[in-house]
């Protein structure tokens, strides 16, 4: 596929599909239920990572894995790297993408902030799925303050 237009369109169709379905089941619109978008991302990521890590040496540790997610993995999917990765070295990682692909299309600033969550859920899923398959059990959430910048919070579950 020469370019990722198809992926973009597919992604926004997924968002539409899930939201329409929510409506049809009249879930409350206030705190939108994005579970299904996230899960579609999850199973995509879970399978994707199986393919991507085929040729790769074994990861040394969690941090190395995260770095991989931020660099090679991210640029494979979003054609750019995560701009900033922070961690407290206790299983919390914050990935910041200053121009997150699915938000760049929305006009930046605050006006579309309310709909932003729809466009980050899939990616949260991708991250969670990939890490899950790499045996890092975690919770992934996202926060958008001013678009198109987005922060992804990864919380590793130590159990």
């Amino acid at each position, binding site marked *: 596929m020469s370019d990722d237009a198809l992926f973009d369109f597919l992604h926004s169709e997924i968002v539409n599909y899930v939201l329409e379905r929510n409506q049809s089941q009249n879930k409350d619109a206030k705190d*939108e239920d994005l*579970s299904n978008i996230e899960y579609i991302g999850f199973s995509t990521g879970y399978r994707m990572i199986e393919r991507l890590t085929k040729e790769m040496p074994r990861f040394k540790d969690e941090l190395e894995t995260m770095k991989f997610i931020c660099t090679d993995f991210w640029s494979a999917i979003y054609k750019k790297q995560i701009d900033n990765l922070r961690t407290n070295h206790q299983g919390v990682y914050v990935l910041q993408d200053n121009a997150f692909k699915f938000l760049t299309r929305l006009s930046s600033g605050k006006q579309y*902030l*309310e709909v932003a*969550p729809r466009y*980050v859920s899939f990616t949260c899923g991708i991250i969670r799925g990939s890490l899950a398959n790499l045996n890092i*059990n975690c919770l992934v959430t996202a*926060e958008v303050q001013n678009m198109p910048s987005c922060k992804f919070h990864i919380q590793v579950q130590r159990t």
Partner: protein
Amino acid sequence: MNGTIDIGLVVDRRPLITCAGELEVFSSIEDNLAQALPQDSCEWRRSMGRPIRNVHIGANFTPYSSKALPKGTQWDLIRQPLFHIYWTECTDVDIYKSTLRDDIDGWLKELNAKDITDWLVVVVENYDGKRTNKLLPRTTVLDKIRADFAPKQGDRCISVINPGKLESRSADSWRGLVSRIRHLLLVSYAKAVARLEDYVRQQRERRNEIGWNFMQYFQLQEELAQVLEMLGLNDEALVQYDELDALLSQFVANGITSECVNWLGEFQKPLERWHGLKLGPSSLSKTPSILELRAYLYAKQAQMLLLTNKVWEMASRCLPFLHTCTRELAILEIKAPPGAVACWLFLASMEVLQTCDKFNHADEVEEYSLHTACLWEYASQKLKYLGDLCGLMPGGEPTSDQLHTVVGLSAGMGDNPGPANSPSPTDKLKSALIHQDVFNKTYLELAELAMGTYKHIGRLRSARLVGREVASFYMSLGQHQKSAAFLGDLLRTFEQDGWQELAAQTHLELAECYKKAGDVGKLIRSCASVSSAHEIDNIIRWTYFDEMTRHAESLDKSLAVPFENIVKIVSVNVLNDENVIMLDTKVHVELVLESNLPRELVCEKVDMSLEAVENKETSKSNEKYCKGRSLSSKDLKPRDPMLQRLKIQRNLDYKQDKQLASAGIVSKFTELRRKDSTQQVCSSEFAHALEANKLPLRLSPGLNVIRLSKLADETGKFYLGQVALHVGKLAFVSATLPHRLAIEVKEEKPTLQLNKRTPTLISGVEQLMNIILTVGSHPIDPKSTIKLTSSRGLSFQIGADRPLATTLEFEVGAKPAYSSSRYALRVLADMLGKEHHVTVAAPWAAKPTAVTLNFTPPLTAAWRLHSARHRKWVQVSLTGQCEQGLTVREAKLDVAGVCEVDGKNASSSHLIPNGMTFSFMWELLIKPGADSPTIKAEFSVSYKLDEDSEERPYRYFFDINDYQTLYLLDADVEPAKGSEFCRVGAVCQLRLAIAQTRASRERSLMYEVLAEQSVWAVCGRTAGVVGFDGSELERPQTVALDVMPLASGHLPLPLVRISKYIPAEAGNDKHGKGDTHPRLEPFSPGQVYNASKGKQIHVITPVSDGHPT
């Protein structure tokens, strides 16, 4: 003379040094020299950029003989004298010139002839006393020798002070000599080694040529190895042996492909000896068998490894090595008596293990345990094999052939006795092959060691698998319990890792084991598991199924077997519409089971336990669990948390100013833990349980839908607990269901209500009330009666006809559940009390309950006495109390004939609305002056609430006392003399006139002027006492007081009050003690008539011209 580290060195590879010249000189220092040489290490520089190594080199000395001289370029120089020393102690130059020089010259010529360049001339100097005082000669012999023979290489000539004498001075020169020899020797030795290496290389190149022979080559390269070993380069020596190892393997692997490798044929002769490895010092026979060759090679490698402290590597190389050997035996098709190879392998592994123990350093145990574990296992396997072969296995008896085999094998092992306290592997094996019990002991010992070591290094699975072998061994030993224990562990491991097929197999073995052990309970259990394992062949499954059912019948006490894989709960559904179920109604549950049993199972009973929920739990769990109406397989099988769907929601954060600060997503999901699937069985007991509707239940293979139900006969909250299938005394019991499905059983008690029909109850009137009886969740016994008891003054009755009573009983009668019926209760309360009680006793209520009824009278009355001089009036006013106004008529006032009464408005009838007051007036026609006995007055009136209700009387009783007028009081205000008007601010006169109308006991009374302050100012006294002697009645006493009006207009006169005045002294006749103060006593309303009431005086404003008054 021997080197330092020659353990097991077969050939002494130390270089030979020849000694020429004055040998006696040499012999005096030979020993010192031989020892000194290897003491210090010396740098060995080699060609081809190989690393510089520090080596120790020793030497053997032989007298010089020209015939023994080798050619300086021979490849095997290593075996020849390769360094040559000329010794002399001549110090006299003249003697040197005369004889010595020629001798040395000859020696050197011979060396050169063989182009040998490695030589040294040593001049030993002996100092003794007589020489010391002499001056040293200008040139010494040494100088001469140098000049003559070694003008360029000065280091070829050296002088040394004889160490035998004067140690101190000689030490340095001695050290010099030794290191010189060491150095030069090494240089020449290095050359020799290099040549040898070249030669070896050449030989290897020719390895594919016809006639090339491995053994020859072997010896050649080993020589190199030995040299390196001698130099203490064990690692490099090892490399040589490894190369040989690899080369041999290569050849054998390729097999005899061409005649170039005919030499391999040498090895193909049948095996005669299987001595094991013979670790440690060993030598190789000229024509070794492949095993011997291999053994020797390994022994050598082992030795090098031990010398370099690599015990673990020796161990690690062992198993692969043994595998290679067996494989090569196979490839070379070497014939060997049965068991021979096994013996050899056993011995080999045991020897290695023993050596490991010997060299066991605490810090290395870990490392080599990694490799010994599998060796122990291997040894045990080999032994077991031999046991089978020689009929040593438990339960068996060796046949004569087998005994023969044993003899043969023992012979082939050779003798290798160990010290008494620790028998050698050979000893062990021999006795094991002879005595069955020793065999058993040894085998179990080895297996235990294998398991132990495996566990130690954390290879649990491997340990368990050894355990499997052991289990079967114990089986044949008839020790089924032990066997079962091992199999149990094995099974657990398989199940933990989820290896169903292996688990199934183990169940099979366990079943056999329990059968032998006669443990019916466990046997049934494993039969069930086997027969429900799809991995196992159907015929087998059937037989075990039958076995199970057969034994189930013979059970004498009940047995519970967990569901596990035998039966699976697919889904559970509560069929009732609500989770709240009324007492005495049926709970219906649909249960879908999947039976993995191969045949139909007939269950006499199927039930599902109900677990009562502790209240504290319900409070919180209500929300969480009880919503669920059904469990599906999804809920039942533990999900992989890694694949969980999460609840993801949008999350918007607003600032104070309601502006959207950030938007994101959050997960409402909290724990990602894996919920433990293992639940204890038979925890709940089946006291309250749902039961299958159709029994016996035929549980067929595959899916089964089962309807369970139970009459809810106890209130409370229950979880659906466990499922149990009963087959005779055998019960298959499921794990406890996740506490998601709860049923709540409730009951509703009947109730009895007593309801007013009207907002207020009125006493004195019969009214209707409602008794409402509501039957609860289950009907009441029709015979049961309800009893009402009333408090005093209250009476009631059901039904119009029967008379009112104070107690009342009535039967409930047949009433369906939840029906409610209404009874009309007539009530009548007298007017005495406002509050009345009804006590209700119902059979379902523990104790009777009292209901309070508040009644209000229909109307209230009040009375007043009015006077005019001597005439008297009574006013009775009625106030209505019921919302619908009541009508009154026939008001009567009965004064008990004290006097006549004249009703003013009594005759007519009146409507008195609620809260309104209506008054009746009567004049008491009494004679003035007559005394006034108390009048017992009774007011009566008849009222009715509305037209159709009949009239009832209302009575009101009151007493009238002191109603005769005793005093007439009058007052007037007059302007001061000379003015005809009262003016504001001008003093006027208040004239009081008090007249006594009849003689009375009171002699004196007091008057008080109670003037309105804002209107009147009383000047001077405001009160006084007037006395009456009772002589002249009706003649008033007058008093004048000064008062001043403060306002203009028609003013009411100041109010004057008179009271009885009882002087102080006059008191004692009343009470016993004297009264020091005078007292006032008020008159009762009727006794004083004040005529000035209502009088007014016109007061005008003061005159404008201030003319005095």
